[in-house]
């Protein structure tokens, strides 16, 4: 386990995560406003990538082209990769979703799956089933050295662009007129309409922004990996959607955090040894202990009515959390004289069991410190971590977006 190795795995995971994030933002925005999952979003991303690739190919760019030409071509490709998906997103919303608005939520969902299949076939029909490949450009293979580790400039660009877009988007939703309209529409479409907000326009705008982000994602993927296949949108879409749920659907920073967690888990899980991974479990254990010892008792204490608040009662609540094996089980076994106390005792014992489990896992991992997980387990690990997170926090890491008052 060299520093070199950890660095390249971290950058790799971060880059993958940020690409998921760009797509996840589109899922999360549409969900935030319409409470509906736009399954065709992954294909919009693929179209963005294809349009960008064919723009670069049409301009005849290769590694020998002067950099001014390359910069111009990339700018043009970016323009195409933004405009075409935007138009596509607009059309999809107009013909496949808007006529179904107000119906049961399952109906636009089916329509979205249909659109996704149609788009994928259209990509095959228009561009052919072969993966599209672009020649390596100096801009996409350039690397900088960071403490002796080579990092591709494009990886840094991807990370920076995603982060910047996330901040811009948060600003857009929180602090602009159209963002206010989006939040109002999300909160109550009818009421928003009565207040004079053109909800159709607002929703169309949401689709435009989401599609543009997916298009940028497509361009970056083509530039970074050099090729794209017609069905790439399926897997990317699935993982981006997963990221959005993981981070808390409807929550813009959440989508990015979820995407980073997913990307990191995918790469870390299979390329560092158990001794290193165990530290993540230790961090989880520290968090678990903090919850058991401090956070959970504090929360419980806040529920005590003033007339019952005695020092002794407070101490017994603390005890069932902090000394769960003894006081907790004792309280559980004793007659239920106090509802709050017995609920707390059960909670405390559960938390402790979770912490003991984490400690055992960490110990086992440290005992096999030099072992490494087979790459075959990559998707298994990623989704196991995901399920565990969602089990403990069903609303996602940063929580589902709660519509604030406009």
């Amino acid at each position, binding site marked *: 386990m060299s520093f070199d190795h950890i660095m390249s795995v971290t950058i790799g*995971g971060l880059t*993958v995560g940020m690409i998921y994030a760009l797509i996840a933002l589109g899922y999360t925005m549409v969900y935030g406003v319409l409470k509906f999952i736009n399954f065709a979003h992954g294909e919009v991303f693929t179209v963005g990538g294809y349009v960008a690739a064919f723009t670069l190919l049409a301009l005849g760019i290769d590694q020998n082209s002067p950099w001014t030409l390359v910069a111009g071509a990339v700018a043009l490709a970016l323009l195409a990769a933004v405009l075409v998906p935007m138009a596509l997103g607009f059309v999809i919303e107009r013909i496949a979703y808007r006529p179904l608005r107000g119906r049961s939520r399952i109906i636009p969902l089916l329509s979205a799956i249909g659109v996704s299949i149609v788009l994928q076939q259209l990509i095959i029909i228009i561009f052919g089933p*072969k993966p599209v*490949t672009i020649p390596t450009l100096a801009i996409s293979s350039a690397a900088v050295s960071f403490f002796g580790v080579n990092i591709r400039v494009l990886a840094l660009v991807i990370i920076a662009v995603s982060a910047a877009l996330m901040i811009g988007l948060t600003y857009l939703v929180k602090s602009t007129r159209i963002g206010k309209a989006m939040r109002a529409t999300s909160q109550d479409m009818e009421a928003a309409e009565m207040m004079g907000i053109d909800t159709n326009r607002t929703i169309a705008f949401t689709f435009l922004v989401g599609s543009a982000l997916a298009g940028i994602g497509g361009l970056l993927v083509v530039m970074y990996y*050099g*090729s794209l296949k017609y069905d790439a949108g399926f897997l990317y879409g699935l993982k981006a959607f997963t990221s959005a749920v993981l981070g808390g659907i409807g929550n813009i920073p959440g989508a990015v955090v979820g995407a980073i967690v997913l990307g990191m888990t995918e790469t870390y899980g299979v390329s560092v040894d158990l001794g290193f991974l165990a530290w993540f479990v230790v961090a989880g254990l520290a968090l678990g202990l903090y919850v058991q010892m401090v956070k959970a008792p504090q929360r419980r204490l806040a529920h005590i009515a003033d007339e019952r608040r005695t020092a002794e009662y407070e101490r017994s609540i603390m005890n069932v959390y902090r000394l769960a094996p003894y006081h907790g089980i004792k309280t559980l076994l004793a007659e239920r004289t106090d509802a709050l106390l017995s609920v707390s005792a059960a909670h405390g014992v559960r938390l402790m069991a979770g912490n003991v489990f984490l400690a055992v896992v960490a110990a086992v991992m440290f005992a096999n410190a030099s072992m490494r997980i087979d790459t075959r387990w990559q998707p298994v690990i990623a989704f196991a971590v995901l399920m565990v997170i969602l089990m403990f926090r069903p609303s996602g890491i940063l929580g589902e977006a709660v519509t604030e008052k406009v």
Partner: protein
Amino acid sequence: MVQERIRKALALMLAAALALSMFGLTGCAADDGGETDGETTDGETTGGEVQTIKIGVQTALTGPLPDYGLAAKNGVELALEDFGTFEMDGTTYEVELVVLDDKAEPTESAVVAQTMADEGVVGVIGSLTTGATLSAIPIYFENRIPQISGSVTGPKANETGADTFFRTCWNDAVQGEALGVWAMELGAKKVVLMDDNGAYAVGLADVAEATLKAEGVETLRQNCQSGDKDLSAQVANIKEFGPDAVIFTGYHPEAGLLRKQMVEAGMADVIFMGGDGIRSAELVAQTGGEANAEGIYATFGGFPEEQQPGYAAFAAKYQEKYGEEVGPYAQNNYDAFGALIEAIKQAGSTDTEDIIAALQDLTYEGVTGTFGFATEAAGAVAKGDIVVEGLTPANVPRYVVKDGVWVSAE
């Protein structure tokens, strides 16, 4: 209310139209069968009649390897021109191809195989990939339909020993061993084997790994999923292991990405090898350009073209008809079709049981050489494997990318 009714009526009509169209399709299929039967009786009484028989082509025109799929289809279509009409017992037989696309997916492949059986084909050329063939073999076996693949090279393809399965390309066990031997000839002491979790790639990597380990070479096994874009975790692992050679046994899309990402991680000087799955012209573009692809090695599951007796004539025909270079395994598929027709002639019958028996005894002079099929499994050889005289791991053909094109590495 009225609107609602109109809508309901429309939905019903649409559903009815759908149902009808499906009926229509199956109806057509049944009609075809009827006609064929009619002609058979005609043929027996009057003689000199034309009878149509169906031969299936199970390939993958979409999915991950459309270039391989198209080459296979082209090969069979060329063979159809040459052998598609033949006489037997005074009856002229005309072959009609039933071309179906299995997208190189196991689930799709089972559906295609069932469709072939329902279509009443007397034999099938295909499928294209080992993974997809695994789910088709039991169905062809159940329905007693002989199946000859020109490109399924996976050692695990016919583990069940179905007597309906034949192949005109080499088993990968030969290539796996050859890759291991070649890597050692190149002086590799530490080798990474990477597969894409598909049956073809895993089979090839297993054999190569066993060959290397037997000689004391240190190995590391890695995998990815077919369709993966980001291999940074694997590349980081490879870099840490510090190998002399990487053998990627999957197909060219992932091979290209792996090579590209390895070069970007500063491992341009590590020997990069693969089986026939990477020996496609597409690979060069997928590695990001000629510079990255330079020096990639690949073995191939067949003798070099110049050693194939009928290749020159075949290539000329292929060029003329399709206006492009001969695609991978096109000639093996051509031979598969030729061998199937030859077996029908020798059986003197279009009964599939007779054809299967005839294929087992067949010695066929094809474009790739003179070959037969193994009647029993022995060692790495599976039942139905092509039997070629004088084949050893050391004389398995070797190729290398030079200036952006695959050339013989001899």
